[in-house]
């Protein structure tokens, strides 16, 4: 384990976090808010810690492997959540440290679950920071930094990107990892600016437009009004709906469009299935809730907004779907698990995994009927590698293990089953509001410190797709054989040579 290199990268990343805080200062300047002093204090602390980490780390060699990639990725998300909570805590708007970290983790992981019952009392700069974390976390923190500076050389960069990017198999669009990261961010920024312009043209206040756009782009779901999105005009709600669905789409679709290969778009089966699921869910819910609406149009609008909000794991609300009929609520619960497309900013299990699992079930059924049948699972016309299939199966198993244990752990706070179940579902899938006690009209403040920590873990585990975070819990990640341990290496030249040999052996074995 290359601890020095891990510290070095973490240090760099923290300095970047201070950079991410900077735009909020502009907002404070516009609204002339004096409490912004706490933002500067936070920035100073984060920078100091980052530079300290960087100063104390002296990497023996710069090579990092899959293990380091996963550890860096998981640690950075926890660190960002903890240090990002400083403005909330220091300014006193969220006095409890756990609550503040929860709010920030919810922001970076684009969950959108809040412990605040009244968001309108927060100063503008703090609201802006809260929403901006969505935008940063949406496409990925490491991906962003990788697009700007070469954090790691050679294949190492790919290990970082793999650990952070959602989806069963991460593919590059262009040969270099940094260029791929840059390309993703170009598309991300383009869509963000587009939505912002349309919302401003649709007469949404500028500040609201910024925050709502960040929430949509990262599929986060923090809003700036206590009423969520209910008070925005129908046009604005429709715009938000459309963009939520767009940001939940696999970005390779946009890449195809960018290259002018529009004819190939319908061949991206994940995106098509995703749109199909949305269509079906909207239709079913519209029929189910039509009784409580005066016109069919309004019920379609609310159904579409809510379906889009849940499947993309954004979590905006225009209405309290907690009071919808059970059938509609259950559809929403199912959508929570399905989640958005791989390679998008959304969370959840991902449409492509669900597709593959269904294909695998069909294959197993088939092999019961024809025991000697040889059959391969195809996806987008290509035979799926067994390793990918195994990865998906293990992911889903691990996913439900984490889910079950989390529900068990948060049950100590003695809320109802619906509340606990949906609270974990809403955080592990990075959605935000759940049902019952954590529905769109309520919040997560009822949970105690212990449950809050469990939910913070769930949010980050959900964002990084479980395994990179579970790796942190394995002792084998941290402890290695005696020869490779950092201290002994420097003792004699012989051992150093051994290490070099082991290093090249490791490289040789991949």
């Amino acid at each position, binding site marked *: 384990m290359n601890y020095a290199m891990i510290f070095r990268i973490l240090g760099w990343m923290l300095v970047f976090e201070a950079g991410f805080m900077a735009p909020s200062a502009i907002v404070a300047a516009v609204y002339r808010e004096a409490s912004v002093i706490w933002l500067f204090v936070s920035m100073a602390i984060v920078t100091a810690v980052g530079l300290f980490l960087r100063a104390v780390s002296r990497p023996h060699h710069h090579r990092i492997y899959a293990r380091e990639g996963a550890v860096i990725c998981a640690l950075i998300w926890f660190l960002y959540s903890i240090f990002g909570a400083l403005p909330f805590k220091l300014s006193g708007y969220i006095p409890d440290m756990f609550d503040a970290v929860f709010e920030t983790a919810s922001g970076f992981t684009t969950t959108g679950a809040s412990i605040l019952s009244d968001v309108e009392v927060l100063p503008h700069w703090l609201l802006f920071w809260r929403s901006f974390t969505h935008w940063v976390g949406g496409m990925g923190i490491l991906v962003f930094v990788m697009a700007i500076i070469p954090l790691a050389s*050679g*294949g190492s960069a790919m290990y970082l990107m793999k650990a952070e990017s959602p989806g069963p198999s991460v593919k590059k669009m262009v*040969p270099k990892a940094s260029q791929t990261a840059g390309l993703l961010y170009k598309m991300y920024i383009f869509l963000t600016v587009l939505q912002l312009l349309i919302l401003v043209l649709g007469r949404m206040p500028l500040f609201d437009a910024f925050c709502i756009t960040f929430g949509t782009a990262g599929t986060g779901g923090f809003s700036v009004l206590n009423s969520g999105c209910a008070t925005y005009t129908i046009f604005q709600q429709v715009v938000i709906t459309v963009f939520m669905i767009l940001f939940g789409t696999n970005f390779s679709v946009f890449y195809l469009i960018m290259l002018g290969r529009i004819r190939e778009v319908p061949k991206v089966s994940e995106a098509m299935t995703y749109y199909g699921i949305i269509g079906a869910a909207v239709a079913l819910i519209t029929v189910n809730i039509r009784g409580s609406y005066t016109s069919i149009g309004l019920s379609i609008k609310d159904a579409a907004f809510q379906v889009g909000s849940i499947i993309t794991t954004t979590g905006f609300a225009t209405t309290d779907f907690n009071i919808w009929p059970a059938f509609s609520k259950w559809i929403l619960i199912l959508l929570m698990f399905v989640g958005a497309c791989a390679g998008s900013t959304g969370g959840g299990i991902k449409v492509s995994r669900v597709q593959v699992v269904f294909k695998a079930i069909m294959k197993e059924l088939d092999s019961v009927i024809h025991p000697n049948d040889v059959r391969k699972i195809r996806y987008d016309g290509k035979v799926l590698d067994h390793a990918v299939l195994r990865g998906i199966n293990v992911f889903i198993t691990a996913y439900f293990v984490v889910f079950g244990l989390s529900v068990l752990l948060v049950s100590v706070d003695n809320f109802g089953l619906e509340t606990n179940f949906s609270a974990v579902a809403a955080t592990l899938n990075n959605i935000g509001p759940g049902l019952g006690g954590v529905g769109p009209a309520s919040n997560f403040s009822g949970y105690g410190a212990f449950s809050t920590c469990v939910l913070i873990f769930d949010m980050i585990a959900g964002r990084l797709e479980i395994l990179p975070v579970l790796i942190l819990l394995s002792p084998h990640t941290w402890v290695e054989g005696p020869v490779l341990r950092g201290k002994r290496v420097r003792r004699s030249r012989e051992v150093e040579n051994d290490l*070099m040999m082991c290093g090249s052996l490791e490289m040789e074995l991949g």
Partner: protein
Amino acid sequence: MNIIVVGCGKVGAKLCADLCREGHDVTVVDKSDSVVNQICDRFDVMGFSGNGASYQVLQEADIVHADLVIAVTGVDEVNLLVCLIARKAGHCQTIARVQNPEYNQEAGFLKEELGLALVINQEFTSAQEVARVLKFPSAIEINTFAKGKAELLHFRIPKDSVLDGMNLNELHERLRCHVLVCTRERDNEMVIPQGNTVLRSGDVISIVAPGDEQTEFFRKIGLNTHAVRNVMIAGGGDIAYYLSRILIRSGIQVKIIEKELARCEQLADLLPKATIIHGDASDKELLVEEGIARTEGFVALTGIDEENVILSLFARSMGIRKIVTKVDRSAFAEVFDQLDLDTMIAPKNITAEHIVTYVRAMQNSFGSNIETLHRMMDDQAEALEFLIRDSFTHKNIPLRDMKFRKGALVACISRKGKVILPRGDDWIEVGDTAVVITSIKGVSDIDDIFEK
């Protein structure tokens, strides 16, 4: 540049490493899924699995925007087909690896007719390199420049040599020989020496010297310069074939030991003057019976690195004068270095050198072209030969007035077919080729070695 590498064997992987380090956008294609995944994990490249000769796969790898396609699979026909299709599908240059002796004789025709930029035969070039050191056994490695007219000789300073403890300023005076020491290796570290650098026995140094002075120099420091008279080759692959042809032509006796009977018959047919032994080269009795003790040169060219190393160690224990070992997996080079085997060759590195030469020249089509590139000591330093064009900023200035960057040296200048060993008052003019030894990375133009 956008470069597509088809085939991710040993050569392909080495190319990925080199081209990535030089900052190119590399896409790899290989028929094996797992190989592609492995390469993508190790290097910052994009990978596709599939048949590289298929139009569709090349499309997927974005052939339209590629500047260069390099086909280095193990099959010649596939490589040629890849290049052919790549040229039709995009606007790129193509490089093919061709190893079969039958095609080798037609390399010129193939290059012309298929529009290939470069045909690489690493077996043939490796054989040439081995033949050079067999003809001059005191050298560990010999790099040639200026179409073979200038040579960079690497050799280890023997025990109790006059060179031991001598510094370079004294060298010229005491030996009365005009040679230029270009590099010195000690403890896995390479330096480009200055006047006060001291040599010790056990160091590996490289020198440039005009032909006649070279022999003189080696005689004075007590190293034998006679070519070996007979060579035993373990393993009868393509390199062995090419090598035997070269050696036989210079009157050196060749004995090849090959395991496979069919291959033996084929070799016997192709090389009537060589002795072909059918048997396992790792059989000690056989080696002794075939007179390894009386052999002056031993070349281990079997397909297995470990076997080659063991055979060479055995040959050394028999006191053979010159031993050459083929080692393909250079990741373990440190281990092999400690064994103090005489000459080691890695065919894939030779191919990579050629391709990197071409790529750098392609990038720099307006400046001074790179003619030749040799890497030394795990890529710690490079020897580059430049063709000087009009754009050269330091033309016709005496060398002593040029401001070189640290770690750069002009080793020799070749003007109108004559090799000049440069001194302070020599100059470089348009039309010359100049050999530069440098530890600066990624030099693609001779202007890169001067202070800006």
